[in-house]
């Protein structure tokens, strides 16, 4: 798989993972918050498998961050049932997840 396609797939997966993670943070009144956080973790682990397939340079990492931010924004806008605090958490959660998969 070429780098461009891999970046696209990786950011698709991470955007969904972060939507779950942010959902689990803002919907704290749920009993199953741990379960939803686990859903996010499952997806992040899938993303890790993609991330280790290539060596990423500074520009690639910049592109990943840019695409992820756009896709996550769209994901969160579509899910109107997640509390609006979700947008405040975006940047911090992006930084955190990229660090987790060594793409910061």
């Amino acid at each position: 798989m070429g780098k461009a396609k891999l970046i696209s797939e990786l950011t698709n997966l991470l955007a969904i993972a972060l939507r779950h993670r942010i959902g689990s943070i803002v919907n704290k009144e749920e009993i199953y918050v741990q379960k939803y956080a686990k859903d996010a973790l499952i997806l992040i682990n899938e993303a890790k498998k993609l991330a280790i397939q290539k060596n990423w340079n500074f520009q690639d990492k910049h592109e990943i961050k840019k695409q992820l931010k756009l896709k996550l924004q769209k994901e969160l806008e579509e899910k109107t049932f997640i509390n609006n605090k979700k947008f405040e958490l975006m940047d911090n959660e992006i930084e955190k997840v990229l660090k987790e998969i060594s793409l910061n």
Partner: protein
Amino acid sequence: MPEFIHQISKGSRYNQIYIPKEMEEMFEIGDTIKVILLKKKTFIYYSKNLKLGEFKKNLIKKVFQLLASFPEIKQVFIVGSFLVKKTDYKDIDILIVYNKKINEEKIQDFLTEKITLNFHILAIEEKSFNSLVKICPLTRSTLYYFVSNRKFVLPEESIFDKNHINFLLMMPYDLLKINAGSRTFYDNIRRLTTIQRFLEKKPLNPEEIDAELEKNLGNFLFSLIKNNESIDEKIIKKLRNLIKLKLQTISKLIKWEKQN
């Protein structure tokens, strides 16, 4: 100093402790005494259709006694497979309803240290709990069987909350396009079955939900994904088709709920 051990009894205005007849002269009107709680009385309340053997009953009593030392805990529920399976349970699920935020990890470690068994603590604030027992299919199914330290009756009437249901449907929708382990498919098909039954106003008995799931998937596939065994593309396609079908049915039921 003279002492006696007695139980507190119910009075018409105040609960009371009687001084034993033979000690009347030692404990006189006007004397100053100190009352210390030696052993907390534990009550056990069961959901309907649930009977437990002595071993499980004593274990639960012990858990309730230990948790009585946390004043921030309002109510404790023992739920999950420990109640209904003979031996096939990994841990003991405890649902804690609290007034003031509790440290779940601390309580889990405390219980594991006192009773060398695995516990899984789910904690929720009283206000949220009171709402979830009406709107959440998963919570209602979890509480189908319970043992509690306080009286509890699951509200018969459930409330349809579209946002809540959509939140629960997020992962099943995602599984149509992303890869995950087979157990994730099991958990989410089970989640869908529970949501569908909730919308159809069917009982949310976990055993009936499992039976329905086994019927949908067949014995072999059911056991394969429940045990998180590896699955090939052909099976993933089959599972995705089942998810799609259930999502379509749920979507119709949601539309119907909105109209009524």
